């Protein structure tokens, strides 16, 4: 097991290095940041000073090496726009995104898995068909569109919930959270719902497909022949068997939900990292783009790593194979 972990860590390191190269060159290709940094009527002298100050006169490989050198010291540079260390900027926005993402993924899983299992258990029933119709909608309809409809319905027409922003926050562990206040919760509800619909649809489908297949197996027949109730079969046998793909997807989807938060945050003006990256793309704030992409890549690799380990823990067959 330890060898497996070390091997995976090494792999992850190489991947991060490659990604940093790709991201750096990729972002380097975008626009000319000098136009953003300096007003058009600045003197030639100021222009050159600024270029030198940001190291933009250096060749690409030199800039990349400088970037790597600073990276070792956890220094991602300063934002062109906000004029503050990028890492501080991102970390100040991160709790909002994490809060939103976690609420969405948890909600989607806790609701989607039981409903999906039911739809797989009675695939021909009216309830199952309704659940599946909803899941097809959630799967098909683009997130941004659902966001618009939610705002139009609940904020504009009915006026029940706020259309955007984070609302009042409260401090826990030195970080501001919305879910701790009533006002924050009402602000969290719509964006979380918006972000969770796609994941919900996915969980429903996953749970349904797994349940449908497992219900036809001899494992279920044998449990039935032993007189176990349908509830026991679903909650003990089937749930445990579909848990493996669901945990995998939960992990992987947590990552992609972070990414999809880009759309939801833009629509609901939720001040998280997703909105930050969209703003930084439109303002050509290179250091922020690079840092964000590196962090997302890092998240993904960390999540993949964790999922691999969790897999080994959940599936006893895999565990022994890797131990031996």
């Amino acid at each position: 097991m330890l060898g497996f972990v070390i091997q995976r860590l090494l792999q992850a390191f190489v991947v991060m290095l490659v990604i940093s190269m790709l991201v750096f060159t990729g972002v380097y290709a975008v626009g000319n940041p000098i136009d953003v940094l300096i007003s058009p009527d600045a003197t030639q002298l100021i222009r050159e000073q600024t270029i030198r100050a940001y190291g933009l006169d250096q060749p690409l490989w030199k800039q990349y090496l400088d970037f790597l050198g600073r990276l070792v010291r956890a220094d991602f540079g300063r934002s062109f726009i906000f004029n503050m260390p990028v890492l501080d900027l991102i970390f100040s926005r991160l709790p909002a995104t994490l809060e939103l993402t976690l609420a969405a993924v948890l909600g989607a899983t806790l609701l989607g898995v039981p409903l999906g299992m039911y739809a797989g258990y009675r695939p021909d029933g009216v309830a199952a068909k309704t659940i599946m119709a909803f899941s097809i909608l959630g799967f098909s309809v683009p997130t941004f569109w659902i966001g618009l409809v939610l705002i139009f319905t609940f904020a504009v027409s009915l006026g029940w919930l706020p259309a955007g922003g984070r609302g009042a926050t409260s401090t826990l562990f030195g970080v501001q959270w919305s879910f701790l206040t009533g006002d924050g919760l009402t602000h969290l509800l719509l964006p979380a719902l918006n972000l969770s619909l796609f994941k919900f649809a996915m969980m429903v489908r996953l749970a349904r497909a797994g349940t449908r297949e497992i219900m036809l197996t001899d494992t279920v027949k044998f449990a039935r022949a032993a007189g176990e109730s349908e509830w026991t079969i679903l909650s003990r046998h089937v749930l445990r068997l579909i848990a493996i793909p669901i945990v995998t997807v939960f992990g992987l989807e947590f990552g992609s939900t972070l990414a999809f938060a880009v759309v939801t945050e833009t629509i609901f003006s939720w001040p998280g990292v997703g909105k930050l990256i969209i703003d930084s793309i439109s303002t050509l704030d290179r250091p922020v783009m690079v840092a964000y992409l590196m962090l997302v890549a890092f998240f993904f690799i960390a999540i993949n790593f964790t999922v691999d380990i969790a897999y080994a823990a959940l599936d006893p067959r895999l565990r022994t194979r890797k131990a031996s």
Partner: protein
Amino acid sequence: MSAPPVPVKALADTPFARFRDEFKTSPVAVAALGVVVLICFVALIAPLISPQNPYDLARLVLSDARRPPGYVGSGGFTHWLGTDAQGRDVLSAILYGLRISIQIGLIAGGIAFALGATLGAFAAYFGGRLEALIMRIIDLQLSFPAILLALVLAAVLGQGKWPLIAALVTAQYAYFARTAHGAASTERSKDYVDAALSTPLAASRVVFRHILPNCLPPLIVVATVQIANSIALEATLSFLGLGLPITEPSLGMLIANGFQYMLSGRYWISIYPGVALIVLIVAINLVGDQVRDQLNPRLKR
């Protein structure tokens, strides 16, 4: 509960006929396919049936802007779905927008299909370190959200149709590659491939003529899903302002343009293009669902 017994018919003799007969048993899927065909047809003949050419900026009249559905504009015709902020007829804009969305979805999906399937099949065919490397890269890319990849690429490559298609292809080819790889690995281990290999056929011939055709069923399933996905992704990127130029608004951009007016109650600029988009995507997905259920051997008893 149980479906009425289906009358026993003479068994269809070709795989396609069998597939078609089974497809016909699902009224939802047949209806969805009808909707897809209808939308594609309407989009195709959009210039002939739309009341207005929405891209001809000279023809737009500002006094017609933001009028509700049913308004009779200065052009003398009724704007059944209202007008947008530039005085564009929303119905015409939707018809033209569908045209662009479908076009981009098909082109991006098609290129991603060809590229991904070839890559996956060759990886499975050659095996060894090359296969391991290719699949590792593809797995890595798959774990990375497509939307983010497309977002960054769209930002890097700039606005326009081809940069957008390139971004969509990059974000999606990996799905095809993995599916083709999975199916091709199974095919690779079968005897007929060995038989083909024992003849002096080129590798590309074995892959294209023998392995790939047998991987088609799972690839077709992925293709329906991915075409719907590229349409949705294109709309999302355009909504975020990273897609097509504003002179040729796709559905996503129409929705984005209407967003600010929605808060003041002028819903039609966003809602109707959105409805068109959703009907299209949902219909494609419903067809895809049926195709997937039919092609999934594990659900066959």
